């Protein structure tokens, strides 16, 4: 055994955690799975390493943005074992502003892929010689999933483009086929919800949902940095760096500080222009316009109520209303700029021993509060599911 690592937990995650900064899904679901497969990672803090094993891999590898994961992967490649201790042993802080969060997450994404390229996606080569099948597959999978954010970003455009074009999202020859398409869609939606539920429970249901939305709104940032780091040549601006704001931000937005925070216009300007939230803003507007246009066409072209109804459900309103989910997820940066969460002073999150001055997080500060935002998203999701069920029922009368 070369290395043991505990989870990364936080004591300053704001209520509803709008930016999905807590790592609860990773530490309560993914890490235990990885540990079962013998691929516990070194996640950068709180770990204990055997010096002998560290010397064996030549100490910490240089030239990587994620030296921690690289270290543990190299150890696995030399035949050492790593373990994950799933106990609440350390509490840290999440980045306190939007820019810090983008920088942190893009750095992790680039670092993971960088390591993968160096180690041939953990598939072959001398540095992974002693790895088991499961370890190799996990290494390859994580790097692939990282690259995959480029595809996710491209896929975001599918729905607005098809709708703008005025085309239906599905194709069918007769009503019988439409009926079965609706039923298949219903079955997929319901089984997806059950799967999600089972998978999310160890980390908390809302944490899982937050992460699903995060995957969407974060993907343009990740894709941009990955393209810049690994695909663009240097003379086209290719560069291995985490996300940096464009232009001059002036001073920090301090958006979570009740006293120091900049006014709303200043925050919106910063996030829309310096942090490229303009992409998200435009995307949501274009998609909504596409929905309105295509629905207008349905009303215009349909002669009977049934025609109009079938037009609507085969275009924008195909269950489970994916456009709605994409739009509300991509709106995250904008709503965050308008209404950022407020965090109290760090000292109020800690309990300090008067004599020794040693401080530990309070019981309350270790939890992510449930707030109005999480409730709104759940309401939307429930409504979309109810709509899917209604359409399913309707399929029997079609």
């Amino acid at each position, binding site marked *: *055994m*070369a290395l*043991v690592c*505990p989870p*990364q937990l936080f*004591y300053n995650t704001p209520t509803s955690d709008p930016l999905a900064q807590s790592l609860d899904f990773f530490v309560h679901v993914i890490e*235990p*799975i990885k*540990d*079962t*497969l013998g691929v516990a990672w070194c996640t*950068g*803090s*709180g*770990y*204990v*390493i*055997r*010096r002998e094993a560290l010397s064996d891999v030549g*100490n*910490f590898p*240089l*030239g*990587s943005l994620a*030296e921690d994961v690289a270290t543990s992967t190299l150890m696995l490649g030399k035949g050492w074992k790593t*373990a*994950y*201790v*799933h*106990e609440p*042993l*350390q509490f*840290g*802080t999440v980045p306190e502003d939007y820019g810090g969060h983008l920088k942190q997450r893009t750095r992790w994404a680039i670092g993971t892929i960088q390591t993968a390229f160096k180690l041939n996606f953990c598939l072959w080569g001398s540095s992974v010689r002693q790895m088991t099948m*499961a370890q190799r*597959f996990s290494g390859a999978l994580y790097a*692939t*999933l990282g690259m*995959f954010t480029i*595809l996710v970003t491209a*896929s975001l455009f*599918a*729905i607005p*483009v*098809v709708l703008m*074009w005025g*085309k*239906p*999202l*599905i*194709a069918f*020859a*007769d009503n019988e*086929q439409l009926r079965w398409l609706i039923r298949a869609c219903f079955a997929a939606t319901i089984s997806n919800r059950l799967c999600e539920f089972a*998978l999310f429970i160890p980390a908390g249901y809302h944490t899982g949902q937050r992460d699903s939305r995060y995957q969407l709104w974060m993907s343009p940032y990740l894709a941009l940095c990955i393209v810049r780091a690994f695909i663009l040549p240097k003379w086209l601006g290719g560069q291995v760096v985490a996300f940096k704001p464009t232009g001059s931000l002036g001073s920090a937005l301090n958006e979570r500080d009740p006293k120091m925070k900049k006014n709303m216009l200043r925050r919106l300007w910063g996030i829309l222009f310096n942090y490229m939230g303009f992409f998200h803003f435009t995307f949501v507007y274009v998609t909504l316009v596409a929905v309105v246009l295509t629905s207008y066409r349905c009303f215009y072209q349909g002669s009977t109520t049934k025609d109009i109804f079938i037009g609507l459900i085969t275009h924008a309103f195909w269950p489970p209303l994916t456009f709605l989910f994409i739009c509300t997820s991509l709106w995250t940066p904008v709503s965050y700029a308008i209404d950022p969460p407020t965090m109290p002073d760090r000292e109020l999150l*800690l309990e300090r021993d008067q004599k*020794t001055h*040693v*401080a*530990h997080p309070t019981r309350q500060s270790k939890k992510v509060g449930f707030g109005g935002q999480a409730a709104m998203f759940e309401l939307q999701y429930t409504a979309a599911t109810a709509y899917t069920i209604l359409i399913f029922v309707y399929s029997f009368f079609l």
Partner: protein
Amino acid sequence: MILAERLHGVTYPGAWVFIAVEIAVAIPSQMHNFWTMWALKRRNRPKLRLQGNEVPTVDVFVTCCGEDDEVVLDTVRAACDLDYPSDKFRVIVLDDGKSEGLKALIGQLAADHSNVYYMARQKIPGVPHHFKAGNLNYGLDQVDKLPKGASEFMAALDADMVNFFPLCRLYFPNV
């Protein structure tokens, strides 16, 4: 869809794009699901604790680079406060931000805890310093030079991580 195209004698490029995208997006997530199910066996990590004073030696590195002095100090204080024999572990602050204030604060703390050290490496402009990895490697080199030499184990804490349990007592039975 093919039937529909035949029936109407037209092609539906949009629908094909949609299907292609759906499949492309589904492949990695299906791979992830498959990987998840691979781990469907029981995970077996007993919760163990190491007792007594006959314990291995460990160097705890606290890496920092420009964080607030108070934040780093809280981490160091908590690390010093561990329930672990003080002659068996050292807390080493590796400050890449070269904060004079932090140096002074750690100096005060070292008056009470003889096992606390402050170190800041020389960063030469133009020479790559490799961020955190460089900082940690510098720490590894430096502890080798300390009177007692390197410890058997090394541990690392981020500047803002407050730990409240002697991590080492849990780990070593595992290690």
